[in-house]
């Protein structure tokens, strides 16, 4: 077991994938010479050469489409999109092509493509680089959506994503790259199930990605105040592991969903809907959610902090649900 940063864990996974399968190659803006905007692919160009670590022009539509073509042609491409904000330029390729090819071809073609993208705010890089659109992708049949939130998951989830015959999108929250965690040599994570990060009994705090450390910090504060909160990390945003969510909610009978996306139409809304559909009679209090303020994410530090879910807001929501 070694301690490494989320960034190093992701790089380790990429290195293992490149070394283990000659069909795997990396492609994206600045992934080669510059080492990746978030320095994830640093050193890989030197290690594997320009055939397998390819810098692309600034055209998401173009290089995601090229990735789809390579996947159809038998390769296992890993395409990096700098942030989810820019992936909107490639939505047509992802939604109309990658997600639909199995269906449109009557099962003759599959697109074994992995798209990695950074997401989220908190680094003062302003509105056009800070949004969270995980819920958009999580609503599309035909693709899988992962959100590893720990170093262990960052290392573990890439290999099964590559092995999957359909397109898989991996969201890496920009705030997580510098977080550290222990990573075991053997793989722990799959790409089907959610994980209970902190067992508890009084309220189920359901979250994913960059909000997980905030939820855990809030749970620590609550524990000091006598509230035993369970923290559930979704890990897989599509398909949602509804069984694990319901098991946690049925145990705690109260739930707070923490989601960095905007409230309206958020993934939190979908999770709450599923809880109410399937566990209404187990609930002991109305559900609550902590989401981002419905504004473009501000640049100024204090405004950005105010717009995002924070541990204090999670604590307040939990206390409100508990009637404290």
């Amino acid at each position, binding site marked *: 077991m070694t301690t490494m940063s989320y960034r190093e864990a992701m790089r380790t996974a990429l290195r293992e994938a490149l070394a283990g399968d000659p069909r795997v190659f990396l492609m994206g803006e600045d992934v080669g010479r510059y080492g990746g905007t978030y320095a994830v692919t640093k050193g890989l160009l030197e290690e594997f050469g320009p055939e397998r670590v390819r810098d692309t022009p600034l055209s998401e539509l173009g290089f995601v489409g090229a990735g789809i073509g390579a996947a159809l042609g038998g390769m296992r491409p890993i395409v990096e999109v700098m942030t989810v904000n820019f992936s909107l330029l490639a939505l047509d390729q992802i939604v109309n092509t990658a997600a639909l090819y199995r269906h449109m071809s009557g099962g003759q073609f599959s697109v074994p493509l992995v798209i990695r993208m950074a997401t989220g705010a908190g680094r003062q890089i302003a509105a056009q680089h800070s949004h969270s659109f995980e819920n958009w992708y999580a609503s599309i049949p035909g693709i899988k959506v992962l959100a590893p939130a720990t170093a262990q998951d960052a290392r573990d989830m890439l290999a099964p994503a590559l092995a999957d015959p359909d397109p898989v999108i991996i969201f890496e929250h920009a705030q997580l790259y510098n977080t550290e965690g222990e990573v075991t040599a053997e793989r722990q994570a799959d790409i089907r199930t959610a994980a209970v990060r902190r067992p508890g009994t009084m309220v189920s705090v359901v979250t994913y990605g960059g909000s997980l450390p905030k939820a855990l910090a809030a749970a620590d504060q609550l524990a000091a105040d006598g509230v035993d909160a369970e923290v559930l990390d979704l890990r897989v945003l599509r398909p949602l592991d509804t069984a694990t969510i319901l098991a946690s909610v049925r145990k705690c*009978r109260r739930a707070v969903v923490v989601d960095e996306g905007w409230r309206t139409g958020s993934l939190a809304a979908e999770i709450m809907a599923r809880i109410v559909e399937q566990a*209404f*009679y*187990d*609930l*002991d*209090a*109305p559900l609550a959610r902590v989401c981002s303020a419905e504004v473009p994410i501000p640049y100024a530090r204090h405004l950005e902090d105010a717009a995002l879910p924070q541990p204090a807001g999670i604590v307040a929501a939990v206390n*409100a*649900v*508990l*009637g404290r």
Partner: protein
Amino acid sequence: MIEFKLPSLGADMDEGKLLEWMVKPGDLVKRGQAVAVVDTAKAAVDVEIWQDGTMFEQLVPIGATVPVGTVLATLLEPGESAATAPRRAAMPLPGGQAPAPAVAAGMAPAIGPAVAPPVAPTVTPTGAPIAAPPPGQRRPVSPAARARAQELGLDIDGVAGTGPHGAVTLADVVLAAAVRTAAPVADPPPPPPLRRPHRPWCPRPRRLRPRRRRHPRWRPPTARWRCARRSARQ
């Protein structure tokens, strides 16, 4: 023997102060007649009697504050004799002396040991007062609490809520059920039942449907009238 007990006159009432007796021992009383004035935390309220009878012993002195459910007085049922009626110990005055209860004139007090009445104050299962919801609003009860109360056969209206916005939670129901199981069955059971709370502004339960009123000159149809109707039809 009829026991006249202090009813709960409001959702937040757990005791009351006797201000006045409106009848004397020996007076005949009718069901629905106001017989005493009791001060709650909010107002002086006329308290009515629920059965016809004759006022026998008034056990609580004017000015005493007693819990809800305390026997204020005993009444003789119609036909019951004062000579054979059992006697109760009157409540001591604040000075510490135990006065003889006010007894109906002409009803000779029988000599014998006084029997202390069991005082069973009405409490909510959790001991907390149950606030009635504002008019037009439902009292919040969590789905889990409602389901469990139904399972246990527990009346959810009698359970105090401690959850968000005063909601009844699962824990409240479990506690209320535990209290219900633990509490010995009082003899007689404490009045009034929780399902029918008395409110100061409406001390008499309203009839759900107004009594049907006949025209003052209405008479039941006679056989002759029916015959007339029949022949008119033919």
